[in-house]
């Protein structure tokens, strides 16, 4: 190929500049830089391999150990002292009730708090900054502390609900509320200001703008927060033990009866601590059941999110 065609026109200075620029782009990186780049890339691969290996190990372990016990009677039978007849039905129902309760509590509270902080709160006021700071910190508070809080204020104390399933839902909702608030705030903040301005310029009130423009546009992000919240709530054991989740319940629970209730992680823990080997197999099978319940709920939320997904 003739080089002449590639020669740029223009003044001598322009030509020199173009030649200089080309030579820079075409020169290979020097050895040291290349090595550092490859080393960094290897470290990144190692990090993701480590994370994946841990996850795979848990799932494979659960399947290998639990598969002998897998059958439909796990879903339909109540717990029993006889391993062959023991199932998870009351725990599955209890977990579903708990999560439904959490969603009903956490979505309006979390989105409401996020809307206030993003759209109404005056950042120059110290109390608003204090609230913001505390919500971020609350997301990292250990769950057992929420358990004690639930016991002191919800089960007993001011609310005095007793050891009922609704008290469990309320405690778990408090636990995951910061997650939902933070994710919802991010989602609301991601709605371009030009959308708000466009709406207000048409004579819409602030509330109409939030209700009809900002919230619909931030649904996907809010749902992401709800998915994270459900995933955390479904696996929590410690706070539930404190607010009355019993380990051995043979009937389906209800929201407000004080006959007792249980949840999947609580029952799995109970089976795993029994001396008989059969129950340990059952515990592994319970983990599989829980993963399936979790995946089913998240799949629904992801489907919902994709329905509302939009790009700017």
């Amino acid at each position, binding site marked *: 190929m003739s080089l002449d065609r590639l020669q740029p026109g223009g003044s001598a200075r322009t030509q020199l500049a173009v030649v200089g620029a080309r030579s820079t782009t075409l020169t290979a990186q020097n050895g040291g830089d290349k090595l550092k780049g490859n080393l960094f890339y290897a470290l990144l691969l190692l990090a993701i391999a480590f994370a994946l290996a841990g996850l795979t190990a848990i799932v494979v372990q659960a399947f290998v150990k639990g598969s002998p016990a897998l059958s439909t009677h796990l879903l339909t039978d109540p717990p029993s002292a006889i391993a062959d007849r023991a199932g998870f039905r009351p725990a599955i129902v209890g977990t579903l009730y708990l999560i439904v309760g959490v969603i009903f509590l956490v979505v309006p509270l979390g989105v409401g708090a996020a809307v206030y902080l993003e759209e109404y709160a*005056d950042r*120059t006021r110290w109390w608003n900054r204090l609230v913001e700071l505390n919500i971020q910190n609350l997301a990292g508070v250990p769950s057992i502390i929420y358990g004690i809080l639930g016991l002191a204020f919800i089960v007993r104390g001011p609310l005095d609900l007793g050891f009922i399933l609704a008290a469990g839902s309320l405690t778990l909702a408090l636990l995951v509320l910061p997650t939902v608030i933070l994710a919802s705030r991010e989602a609301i903040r991601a709605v*371009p200001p*030009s*959308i*708000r*301005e*466009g*709406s*207000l*310029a*048409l*004579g*819409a*009130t602030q509330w*109409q703008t939030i209700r*009809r*423009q900002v919230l*619909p*546009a931030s649904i996907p992000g809010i749902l992401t927060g709800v998915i994270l919240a459900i995933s955390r709530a479904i696996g929590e054991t410690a706070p539930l033990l404190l607010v009355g989740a019993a380990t051995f319940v043979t009937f389906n629970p209800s929201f407000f009866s004080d006959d007792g209730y249980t949840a999947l992680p609580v029952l799995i823990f109970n089976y795993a601590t029994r001396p008989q080997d059969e129950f340990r197999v059952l515990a592994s099978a319970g983990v599989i059941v829980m993963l399936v319940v979790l995946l089913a709920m998240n799949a629904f939320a992801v489907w919902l999110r994709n329905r509302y997904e*939009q*790009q*700017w």
Partner: protein
Amino acid sequence: MNDPDTRTTSAGNGSEVDAVAAAAADAHGLSQRIEVPDHGDRIQPAAPAEVIVSIRDVSVAYGGNVAVKDVSFDIHRGEVTALIGPSGCGKSTLLRCLNRMNDLIPSARVGGEILYHGQDLYGPDVDPVQVRKVIGMVFQKPNPFPKSIYDNIAFGPRVLGMKGDMDQIVERALRRGALWDEVKDRLKENAFGMSGGQQQRLCIARTLAIEPDVILMDEPCSALDPISTHKIEDLMLELKQDYSIVIVTHNMQQAARISDCTAFFTVEMDEADERKRHGRVVEYDTTERVFQNPADPRTEAYVSGRVG
């Protein structure tokens, strides 16, 4: 129009300064006067146009920084008023005061009076939401809502609770916005699928749907190609029959082509603190006089392309 001097806010001695500026410009050989096309209707109006918005000694400050100071001029019914001037001179700031969009910035303070049909827009009993219903706004970057074309238009009438057949309201707005023929078969499609020029005309049509009295446009063509710009300029000339339009523009040819009156803003140093700058209106007059025979040498320098 009628007596042009009544519209001039500049205190400068017109003819003398003018001559000096013109001589200076000619000496450099850089001066190029922009032709102002004849709109026909501007010559010899039957009666002086009705003042619809009167801006009196308006100053706007963000925190402690004055953005624009002591602005006074009138906006007339059925005319296009252009605000021109270099960047940072407060044109957009002033424009956003006219429908109280500056209320969204907590630190913004507005002094002076903006009288709309004689009523102060910043009066204690005035609801900014009501102001925005009669004084609509089109923004620099097209900002359609993430909804269908139909819902973009219908949003305003719906939130305002306008009575009537929504399909008709939408069609009328799109026809007025010169968009109907292009989109009538895809009203249910997402507005993001439109071209930039179409999106901006959608935003204009969206504003027309709520039947405002005044339309504010903040550099509506700065993100558009020349063909889309041309379409929007044609649309503005047509719309001024029924609406008063105030447009901020950096394109002086555009100001000359479409506006009836022009306010020229400039940036001034603060007397007390040299580091602070604020905008000020140097000259306000008919577009013809601002571009052909400006009273102030700074206007002359700007419109002839020697600065800015």
